[in-house]
């Protein structure tokens, strides 16, 4: 416990971090009803404070170790061996930072977005933030599950209340799909815990303990499957991705930003923590299948994006493609693949978050998201067009921006795993450039399709303030990803160490498959 919160930072930073947003929400709901300027300011302050705290925690964060830091631990439900245990390693710290960062952006970005039940909207966003941070900081399986499910609720409301025309369908689909996946995970959790309980005589939901349990093969198989399905839905991987376009199209801008920016990452994060952490053997066996699904997702998502008539849907499908890179990179189990994968999660969070935010800004002006209704928007909205192009370029993997670093690391990792996959994934990049540029051309360039658009106002200061940090982060990570990668070295090595013993046995099979698929 040398990485307890007391030694490192002196106060229960993680709990504070997790519950600070909700506390803000509570204060807003209790004391600020009917005063929009007050509760909006409060929401902003709460999210900013959370972000500041998370950045402050970085100063005490030790990047040289894979150990969990800022740990807190006390007994919660003794009968089941359930503890309230929190901690972060490099991967989760990065995810937490992403969450707190994007939450601030989402709040600023939707300052004037909703007109109806505004207080509830901002409160929901803050509660959502608590849920997301909780997912990344939990070190107890039960606690994790609680946060995992709880964050569904605010998101459900955000889509359902403040969404578009088909919001009910989308919200319900989002909820049920995720819920169905996670209840399977619940059973797998129980099976794992009971196996370990019978083996060791003590019930525990402690993640670290269970990670070292060494489950038998058949339990690994089923456990992996159940956890994987739950997380794959969240990611979402092909072919369980269809909730995503619906949810994104209907969600309000802030919802889309958070959904794409953070919620999808929870799936991959879960895979890292649980699929790999608990079931390394089954993971190794599953690698070829995961790879095939990921690569399909990359190409498929990109192809489907190409023909979307709706900007938001296009970006949504592009997420499927990009998250395909993330899962593919993760399961290469080499340093480049894993670090690229985690970094790409951050990148995708920033870029896709930004793209959704931009689509939102356009929508607020034109009240349409159909690409064909746009055209020539660069003339009335030059600043917006500039930002938009930056994010588009980052998204299509332009070197010098953040998307490239993650994507290329993943490809390098993938290439080392099996060349064919890297080649096919690279095809996805071509398609990626195609759909993004095509969209950009059709919306920003060309003749003005509608003379009304000439009178549109360009981005105002608040909107620029929303986008500028995202743009800045995009450039910073693009040219100097070192500090971010540094946080990932130790945890990534840990992941590799976990699967390595099983990899050795599997090597021959990979080679066989490689030969079969005609690798070089």
């Amino acid at each position, binding site marked *: 416990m040398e990485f307890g919160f007391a030694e490192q930072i002196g106060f229960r930073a993680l709990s504070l971090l997790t519950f600070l947003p909700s506390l803000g929400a509570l204060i807003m709901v209790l004391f600020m009803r009917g005063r929009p300027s007050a509760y909006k300011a409060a929401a902003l302050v709460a999210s900013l404070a959370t972000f500041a705290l998370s950045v402050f925690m970085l100063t005490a964060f030790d990047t040289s170790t894979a150990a969990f830091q800022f740990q807190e631990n006390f007994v919660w439900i003794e009968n089941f061996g359930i503890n309230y245990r929190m901690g972060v390693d490099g991967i989760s710290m990065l995810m937490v930072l992403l969450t707190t960062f994007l939450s601030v952006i989402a709040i600023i970005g939707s300052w004037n977005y909703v007109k109806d039940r505004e207080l509830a909207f901002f409160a929901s966003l803050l509660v959502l933030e608590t849920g997301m941070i909780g997912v990344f900081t939990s070190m107890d399986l039960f606690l994790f599950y609680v946060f995992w499910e709880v964050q569904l609720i605010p998101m*459900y409301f955000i889509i359902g209340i403040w969404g578009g025309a088909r919001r009910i369908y989308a919200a*319900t689909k989002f909820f049920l799909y995720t819920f169905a996946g996670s*209840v399977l995970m619940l059973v797998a959790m129980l099976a794992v815990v009971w196996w370990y309980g019978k083996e060791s005589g003590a019930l525990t939901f402690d993640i670290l303990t269970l990670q070292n349990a060494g489950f038998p093969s058949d339990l690994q198989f089923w456990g992996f499957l159940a956890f994987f399905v739950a997380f794959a839905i969240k990611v979402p991987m092909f072919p369980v991705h269809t909730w995503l376009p619906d949810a994104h199209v209907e969600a309000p801008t802030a919802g889309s930003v958070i959904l794409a920016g953070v919620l999808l990452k929870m799936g991959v994060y879960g895979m890292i923590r649980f699929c790999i952490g608990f079931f390394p053997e089954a993971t190794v066996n599953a690698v070829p299948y995961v790879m095939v699904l990921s690569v399909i997702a990359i190409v498929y998502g990109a192809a489907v994006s190409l023909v979307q008539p709706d900007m938001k849907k296009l970006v949504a499908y592009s997420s499927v493609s990009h998250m395909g890179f993330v899962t593919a990179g993760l399961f290469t189990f080499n340093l480049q693949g894993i670090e690229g994968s985690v970094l790409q999660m951050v990148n995708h969070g920033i870029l896709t978050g930004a793209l959704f935010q931009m689509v939102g800004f356009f929508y607020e002006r034109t009240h349409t998201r159909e690409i064909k209704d746009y055209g020539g928007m660069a003339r009335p909205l030059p600043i917006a067009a500039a930002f938009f192009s930056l994010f588009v370029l980052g998204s299509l993997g332009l070197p010098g921006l953040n998307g490239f670093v993650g994507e290329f690391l993943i490809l390098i990792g993938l290439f080392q795993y099996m060349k064919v996959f890297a080649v096919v994934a690279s095809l996805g990049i071509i398609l990626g450039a195609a759909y993004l540029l095509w969209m950009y051309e059709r919306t920003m360039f060309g003749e003005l399709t509608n003379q009304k658009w000439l009178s549109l106002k360009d981005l105002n200061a608040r909107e620029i303030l929303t986008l500028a940090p995202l743009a800045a982060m995009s450039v910073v990570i693009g040219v100097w990803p070192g500090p971010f990668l540094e946080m990932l070295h130790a945890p990534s090595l840990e992941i590799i160490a976990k699967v390595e013993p099983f990899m050795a046995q599997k090597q021959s099979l990979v080679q066989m498959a490689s030969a079969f698929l005609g690798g070089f």
Partner: protein
Amino acid sequence: MTPQDLIPIIPELILVLAGLLVLVVEPFLKADKTANVAIALTALLISGAAAVGLSGREQAAFTDMIVLNDYAVFFKVLFAAAGALTVLMSPRYLEASGRHMGEYYALILFAVVGMDLMAASRDLIAFYVGLELMAVSSYLLAGFLRYQVRSNEAAMKYFLTGAFASAITLYGISLVYGMAGTTNYEQVGATLLAGGDGLGVALATALVLVGMGFKVSMAPFHMWTPDVYQGAPTPVAAFFSVGPKAAGFAAMLMVFLTVFEVSRSTWSVLFIVLAVLTMFVGNAFALTQKNIKRMLAYSSIAHVGYLLAGLGALGRAGTDYFAGEAVLFYLAAYTFMNLGAFGILAYLKTQQPATFSYSLAEFAGLGRRSPWAAVLMGLFMFSLTGMPGTAGFVGKFYLFSSVVKADLAWLAVIAVLFSAVSAYYYLRVIVYMFFREPEVEYATKEPISGPLAASLALSAAAVVVIGLLPSWVLDAAQASFGNFFG
């Protein structure tokens, strides 16, 4: 009988006396029935407190017909709580229905006594008497709004099927007696065990299972449930959905663990099969309901399905009573969330006594009209779905955990998938409350009555507290099995 024998039944004595007192006082009251409400409420609270006070004690009374142990205490407290919450939500509702009479409270009290007896009995005769006391009171409660056709019909249906089921149970019990020559649970169990599993035992197991399955609305003996819940006064339906059900499980656990120890393998398989059937029936029917009251009735059937899975696991687990504890805990959790949900229905009915028909469409825009009611309803719906942070989740967690522990992971998978299906119809309520706008204008609303508000607040508090800090109830549930065979 010695005076000592009265100690275990102190809670019931209080209730019986209070019930009689209510009946005596009633003629002296005019329109204002506050006194009777107070009497009933106080009695239930004292009874519950008395039960708590008796916890930790072990005593058999009335020639071993009734026992006092933590198991009985657990249920007595639970029933008292269910009764108290029901009483709290009733006055305004009954006034609105024009049938505010003291007898109502007496019947509730008597029903609780019957339920207490079912949980505390160690003898088939005592069990039968408890069962019938509860049942007879229930029939009357179901038909309490006697000028309403639906209420009449509910009572008739409940009565006919109930009596039919009682007769079947009774026939089974008579066979048990015939084989064992006694009606004491333990003695019967021992005798049957010595005699071995045979045709008679199998027949008796099946008959008793059917009769008790009826009480807890196990499919295919569940069909009365939606009609009765729909027709009965809403607080009564609330009471039915938790009280008799929990009592049925209380008795069922006892009877099957002791009397039918010999046919354990038979009934555990039966419970598993019927659990799946019940989950299917409950969820499939609930999906199509446009009437919330009926939907909640079917949803309660679905929850019985989950509980039966727990019983199946219990049958598989030998001397490990983990599943039993899980069932107890689930019943407790379920009691509060379901009472809460029905409480909201009662509240809405009191808002529009003439027109409110419990249809889904009437929930449209509730989030705007009565935000608090909508938020609480949302909480109860999420709890029924099994979202973490609520009692419903911990209950499911515990229950499915016991199922997994008994190596029935596949059953747990089926159960959780059904609960995912159930999310659809629970969410639909939320969809209507928050995501849709009302189709018609509603009259200005009246302030909520104090007792009803208290009932809702208490239920909500219980749901949240059990959801976040379940240890208290967990300890109680575990303690009840800790000295089950003490």
